[in-house]
């Protein structure tokens, strides 16, 4: 299997995730898109380390760490989401613009 296929797949997945990050209004939807992007990165790393001359177990380690980090981030993100909704009764990222100016 050539690495190009896997790289192409990872890039497509990343692009879809990026589209979702930029387009969706709801915070949960943005979180989902973010997870997709991270998954694409993991695929990239594992594919490259497996199919080229690099150390394959290294790729596994990185992917596993990524999973851990992504999970932790999802947890925090979801609790933040709950807290924001409780505070402003809105989960629309377009209305949460207090960084403005």
């Amino acid at each position, binding site marked *: *299997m050539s*690495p*190009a*296929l*896997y*790289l*192409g*797949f990872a*890039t*497509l*997945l*990343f*692009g*879809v*995730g*990026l*589209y*979702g990050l*930029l*387009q969706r*209004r*709801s915070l*949960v*939807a943005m*979180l*989902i*898109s973010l997870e*997709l992007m991270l998954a694409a990165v*993991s*695929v*990239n790393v594992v*594919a*490259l380390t*497996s*199919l*080229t*001359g690099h*150390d394959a*177990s290294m*790729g*596994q*380690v990185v*992917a*596993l760490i990524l*999973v*851990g*980090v*992504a*999970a*932790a*981030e*999802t*947890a*925090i993100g*979801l*609790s933040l*989401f*709950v*807290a924001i*909704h409780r505070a402003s009764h809105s989960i629309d990222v377009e209305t949460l613009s207090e960084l403005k100016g």
Partner: protein
Amino acid sequence: MNWAGAVFGASAATALVGAVCAVGLKSIFHNILGFALAMLGVAGVFLSLGSDFLAVVFVLVYVGAVAIAMVYAVMLSVPLDQPPRPRSRTKVAGAALFAAIGAAAIWLVVRSAAWPPATGRLDVAAAWAGYRFLRDYVLAFELISVLLVVAMMGAVMVARRTRAGAEDR
């Protein structure tokens, strides 16, 4: 028959279909389901690469834990009786544009690198990952554990309801 290729093709297709559902559909539940499907597909991709441990971890963590947590969070807060808001076409166009830019840049950068050819040896078994964790990357391993604990505590604290007038630590 090239099982790896077939598995890869099927899994990639599944993953992409799921991803499109995750970002394209209107209902948040459909998005979450699409996300789960996409993760299943990614697990399949890992299988086609030979990293079975990683595939299983993906399914366990993402489909089993993350997606469920998202469902919980959505249930607790999103006003489900409201109709979904309309999408602005400029926003869609802009998002698509920037996503395309990002993806194209990544493709170009990755393709421009001279990857050394495969050595033929595939050390993707779980045992090898374990070896690396407990020998060379033990610090990373420990830090991940700490990170997970801290994230748990943080999540609980952030989402907690504070009683009015009382400040408890």
